[in-house]
């Protein structure tokens, strides 16, 4: 019932109504209650194609990217990354090292509940860390937490890690850490937890048909911004060509890891897009620095000059990869471009080989996995051809992955490695993972995976220092020094950085694809 009457006043009233509606909208926009694009709609069901069926989704047991990706949506993370690789608060709201780096204090978010109703707080987080340090619990990536000795509870929402010695990468571990319910993990029963996941993430696991699909549904009690996707179905499709075909046929909305030629043809179509940031994984041909011809630095450098890495990226990988210009992928903290590059120069390679006395008809053994990395076998074959060009004969053998892993983890006296193709990807954005954790003397097999047996005391000292101090600028300077040493000593043929690629139908927006091989779809909308 209108308090006014008459046409003139009606118009004024209508105008006022439109005005107030407009103001109301503006306010709502400003407060972020209505998402940025009003024309974007929520998604009821999002079908994502992945290549492997996770063995487990328990955060403590996970070792590879896809299970880790899915577990993050169920369990949540302490910190998360922006598109530029910066760490921002998530379940942890603030954190800092003590000046000597031996304690690390973390503030936790208040008011977060797990799906079993228990609270996320200092007690649950301390419990989680103690599970990780407990040798009875299976935690293959325990070493990532480094020298953490104990965890103290400062107050209900603050914990303090006590370290044996300073360890800068621990900060990045906040993005790797998950949240697990104290109630659900006491007592620890891995079998029970594998069947019933309790997390604080944006989604709940509602169905897992082994070998077929994993279904996640929105967690209505999620503490953070409400996801715009109601239900996510991860469909397990081992063959990448099949995933792409399903995307094209409309059976999938998103497909992980299309092959390089598929990336190109999908991008050429207006119906599809491919998000493909350069990943934190670098591909290189490791060389045994202690045995055989590759013991000589000149020969190792020669092999670097002998291979045209740009051609490999352009011709074999269809231009989706980028040659390495440093022994660390560009997305990592501590990366700096090397002043001198190993440009393709077969003449220089021949000269170095001659100088080093590489014999006529000398042979080097090369091994490669098959299907582990994008076109690994083809890349190895190409390298074999390049080396042949400069007079280095190689015998190339392929092995399946478990056999290959066994061969690369043998200690120095038992190893038969000379040249081996490998990819090494960091789960967090710190050069420590690529330098100290692969090339220092501390990680030579059987202690670790440094199968090049590169042994440079100056390099060891520099990288050890770089992980033991907290000052970011000082660390960067140390990594600049260390990576230049590494690049120059060439314990590997430095090849390229692979992209992490995810293809999706163009009608979708809001997908987040990150270099550490993560894809977060929870805020996707459809046009």
């Amino acid at each position: 019932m209108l308090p006014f009457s008459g046409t003139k006043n009606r118009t004024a009233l209508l105008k006022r109504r439109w005005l107030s509606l407009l103001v109301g909208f503006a306010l709502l926009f400003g407060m972020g209650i209505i998402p940025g694009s009003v024309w974007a709609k929520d998604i009821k069901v999002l079908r994502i194609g992945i290549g492997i069926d996770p063995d487990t989704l328990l955060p403590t047991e996970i070792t590879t990217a896809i299970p880790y990706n899915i577990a993050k949506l169920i369990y949540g993370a302490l910190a998360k990354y922006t598109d530029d690789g910066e760490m921002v608060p998530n379940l942890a709201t603030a954190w800092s090292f003590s000046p000597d780096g031996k304690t690390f204090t973390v503030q936790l978010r208040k008011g977060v509940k797990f799906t079993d109703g228990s609270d996320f707080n200092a007690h649950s987080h301390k419990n989680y860390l103690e599970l990780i340090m407990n040798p009875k619990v299976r935690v293959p990536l325990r070493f990532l937490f480094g020298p953490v000795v104990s965890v103290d509870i400062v107050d209900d929402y603050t914990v303090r890690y006590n370290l044996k010695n300073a360890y800068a990468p621990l900060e990045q571990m906040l993005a790797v850490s998950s949240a697990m319910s104290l109630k659900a993990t006491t007592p620890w029963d891995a079998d029970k937890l594998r069947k019933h996941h309790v997390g604080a993430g944006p989604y709940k696991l509602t169905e897992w048909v082994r070998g077929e699909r994993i279904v996640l549904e929105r967690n209505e009690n999620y503490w953070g911004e409400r996801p715009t996707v109601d239900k996510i179905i991860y469909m397990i499709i081992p063959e990448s060509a099949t995933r792409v075909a399903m995307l094209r046929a409309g059976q999938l909305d998103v497909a992980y890891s299309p092959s390089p030629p598929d990336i190109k043809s999908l991008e050429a179509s207006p119906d599809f897009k491919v998000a493909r940031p350069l990943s934190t994984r670098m591909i290189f041909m490791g060389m045994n620095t202690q045995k055989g011809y590759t013991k000589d630095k000149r020969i190792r450098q020669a092999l670097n000059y002998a291979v045209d890495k740009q051609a490999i990226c352009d011709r074999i990988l269809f231009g989706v990869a980028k040659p390495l210009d440093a022994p660390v992928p560009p997305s990592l903290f501590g990366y700096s471009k090397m002043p001198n590059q190993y440009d393709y120069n077969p003449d220089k390679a021949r000269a170095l080989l001659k100088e080093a006395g590489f014999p006529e008809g000398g042979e080097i053994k090369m091994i490669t996995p098959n299907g582990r990395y994008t076109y690994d076998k083809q890349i190895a074959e190409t390298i074999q051809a390049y080396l042949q060009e400069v007079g280095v004969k190689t015998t190339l053998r392929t092995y399946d992955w478990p056999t290959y892993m066994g061969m690369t983890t043998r200690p120095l006296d038992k190893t038969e490695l000379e040249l081996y193709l490998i990819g090494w990807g960091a789960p967090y954005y710190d050069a420590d993972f690529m330098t100290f954790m692969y090339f220092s003397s501390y990680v030579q097999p059987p202690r670790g995976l440094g199968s090049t047996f590169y042994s440079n005391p100056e390099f060891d000292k520099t990288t050890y220092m770089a992980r033991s101090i907290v000052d970011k600028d000082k660390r960067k300077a140390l990594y600049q020094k260390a990576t230049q040493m590494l690049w120059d000593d060439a314990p590997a043929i430095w090849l390229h950085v692979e992209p992490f690629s995810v293809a999706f139908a163009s009608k979708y927006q809001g997908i987040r694809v990150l270099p550490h091989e993560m894809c977060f779809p929870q805020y996707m909308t459809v046009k």
Partner: protein
Amino acid sequence: MMIRYFFGRLISTIPVLFGITLFLFFMLRALPGDPAQVIAGEMATEQEVEIIRHQLGLDQPVIIQYQIFMTRLIQLDLGTSIRTQNPVTEEIRPRLANTVLLALVATVIACLLGIPAGIIAAVRPYTWMDNIVTILALFGMSMPAFWLGLMLIVIFSVNWQLLPVGGSGGIEYIVLPAITLAAMLIASIARNTRSSMMETMSQDYITTARAKGVVENTIIIRHALKNSFIPIITVIGLQFGALLGGTVLTETVFAWPGMGRLLVSSILGRDYPMIQGIILVFALLFVLTNILVDLIYVFLDPKVRYG
């Protein structure tokens, strides 16, 4: 008599299966590759791998492991998957049905296409029709299942949008995988039907029937075909093993949730109990199929009697 025969055959397969498990058990563990390392991933330290190895009981002497395995097997317990920690039987059961279904549908399709093709070739030998059948048979046997599967996907799913690409669901999901799997079987069936029919058609009683004035079609179907069935059924039984092997590739291409795919991922993960379980089931299926074939002989040929 028949029941006795059936059970007799069944019991005699037990030593066969026993031999398979023995061979498989020790051969798997002699292969390079370490399941504990696969689970630990490429980044774990040797220490972690040792912990996992101990947790899984893989650091015990092989003989002890075999003892444990056989004790469980007698109670029809196939053990626990190293990778998922679920019982092997639980992992296999849903997939077994899917693979058997796929194999059966492929066999039916192969018969529906292969037998008529063989009949045509036999009835018009050395003509263009015969040649076409022979060439198509050769084509079918030589085409790699992987390629054929992807071609079918491109044509029927992506371009014409007639059938789904992969996965499972209603009847439309089984069509392309079954056709791909049937390809090699069609060829064998067609060729065997052809040669068997040609041999039968040259028999005296066929000439007698013609002389009697029986319609040619009746001769072909009622007299010749029925008597030619034995070699055809034999071929199906023998090829069933190859068919089961073919499921491995076909299931991978079409994301069909069967045992073949599971076998591949188990081998890549060195999941010994799973590999053993799946191969045992495959062996059992093969044996059962051949027993079935033998039993069918009784219906086809009144002269065959067991017992």
